[in-house]
């Protein structure tokens, strides 16, 4: 069967649509995730979504809705726990571990647990339905609109929170609002690559782009391009090679990251000054 024949199938079209939707979103959201140093929060939110998806399977509702509800609750929890979001990684880690445990509990109630678990954990892009696409499209549109509206204050607050706060930008609200948008995006991305690999779609393209340029718009455009190529390329390779789509997508984004790291290393070194940032983990161990 050639590629063209395959494209006539409903599930293939759905897979490509879902992949495109998520890829378009991930460049924009991922840029802020990387800028705000919230990669670990993104990872944790996806595990919160795992509990959501398994709870949804147990109740017999759409898994996407379950993920969205749980990740939104997770954001609320993180927002309450991390007052100034200082040493945030421990709080995030505790929530992550608890949610995984909860997900395992829900799965143990559910009879077909092993297959269901693998689908949630590693994605099942070939089983995306029309309803899922609809929910994803609405969520993407809302997220992109909200981010377009918040773009300048969010950028300011991410680069220089202290100055932004002094200028009267409500940084606490912005950070919670951004986490809400992140929760929506994570839920969508989980449909495509699964809980364990959301990081690859949401963070790696933006992180690679950020190694190559410092301009916000260029970074976002580059990140979107990288995630589009990886997602669609991964899907095509899956139909050709019959290996899991998640593997190809992640392998492609990782390749882009390694390449970006190489290019970054080749260029003349520029002094990098880490700005003081209360929301960011500051590592100085080496």
């Amino acid at each position, binding site marked *: 069967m050639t590629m063209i024949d395959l494209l006539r199938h409903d599930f293939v079209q759905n897979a490509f649509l879902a992949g495109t939707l998520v890829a378009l979103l991930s460049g924009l959201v991922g840029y802020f995730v990387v800028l705000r140093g919230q990669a670990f929060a993104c990872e944790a939110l996806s595990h919160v979504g795992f509990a959501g998806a398994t709870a949804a399977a147990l109740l017999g509702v759409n898994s996407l809705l379950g993920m969205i509800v749980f990740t939104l609750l997770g954001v609320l929890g993180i927002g309450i726990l991390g007052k100034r979001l200082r040493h945030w990684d421990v709080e995030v880690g505790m929530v992550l571990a608890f949610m995984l445990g909860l997900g*395992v509990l829900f799965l143990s109630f559910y009879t077909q647990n092993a297959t269901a678990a693998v689908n949630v954990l590693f994605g099942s892009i070939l089983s995306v339905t029309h309803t899922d696409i609809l929910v994803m499209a609405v969520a993407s549109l809302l997220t992109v609109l909200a981010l377009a509206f918040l773009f300048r204050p969010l950028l300011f607050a991410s680069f220089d929170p202290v100055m932004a706060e002094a200028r009267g930008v409500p940084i606490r609200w912005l950070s919670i609002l951004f986490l809400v948008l992140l929760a929506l995006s994570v839920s969508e991305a989980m449909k495509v690559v699964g809980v364990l690999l959301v990081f690859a779609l949401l963070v790696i393209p933006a992180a690679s782009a950020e190694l190559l340029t410092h301009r916000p718009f260029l970074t976002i455009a580059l990140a979107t391009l990288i995630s589009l190529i990886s997602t669609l390329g991964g899907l095509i390779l899956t139909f050709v090679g019959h290996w899991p789509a998640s593997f190809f997508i992640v392998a492609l984004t990782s390749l882009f990251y390694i390449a970006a790291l190489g290019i970054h290393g080749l260029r003349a070194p520029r002094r990098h000054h880490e700005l003081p940032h209360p929301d960011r983990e500051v590592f100085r161990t080496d």
Partner: protein
Amino acid sequence: MFSVLQYPFIHNAFLAGSLVAIVNGVLGYFLVVRGLTFAGHALSSIGFAGAAGAVLLGIPPAYGLLAFTIGASLVISTLSSETSRRDVAIGVTMTFALSLGILFLSLYHGYAEMAYSILFGTIVGISQNDVILSAMLGLGVLAVLSVLWRPLLFSSFDPEVAEVRGLPVRFLNVFYLVLVAVAVSIAMQVIGVLLVFALLIGPSATAIRITDHPMRAVALSVCLGLVYTWAGILLAAASNWPVSFFITAISFGVYLPVRLLAGQKRARFPIKQLGKKSVTILDKE
């Protein structure tokens, strides 16, 4: 309920679980102090790829686990020194390894069940041999830690001064991650790769909130880990719910009140102080 306790597999579970709790309690303290929570999570997830690869090749999972987690800890150390964004470097390594894991398993028949037992552990299926192997590795890790205790503590709290004093800080960073890798591999059969993390940070994050003294914090974290594990196994045996759920739920349930009560008065984390200092400096400008 107590009739279950007579079965040998429960004895093995208790032995292996206690061992994991002790090793992770000690290592977890440094993990939290060094701000390496994400690395701990990543290394445990990476174990999945190792175990899956071993299953595909038909060798014991422990070898695959050790190879992948130790390899990953070296990759994470090198990548982190290349960029200023350490968490991204950790995440890239982790997701790539996980995707390799799913590839390995998809090449293997009966893949869903296998993935499930690797991810969430099979504590009741632990054999005598597994217990002996984990005991040897665990004692090895503890012995190394007791030798490196002082330099590791010094370099965790004040890496710059430690480097000036001639400590091999860089080597210690890498070596510490390798130790975590070994600990994760031991713990995997007990609670599964995804939940090793719960025993790594849960007890120590709570202990650090209660006391600042390193020795006391480590002792407390080991005690808490043991209590969580025993309570988890007992409750699981009594109720038929998964062990890992009980362990994570108890650990979160203890952490939350401690965090809320202790959060107000203490600000002792080195990371926290660093953040505060830079903010106050900026405020004055």
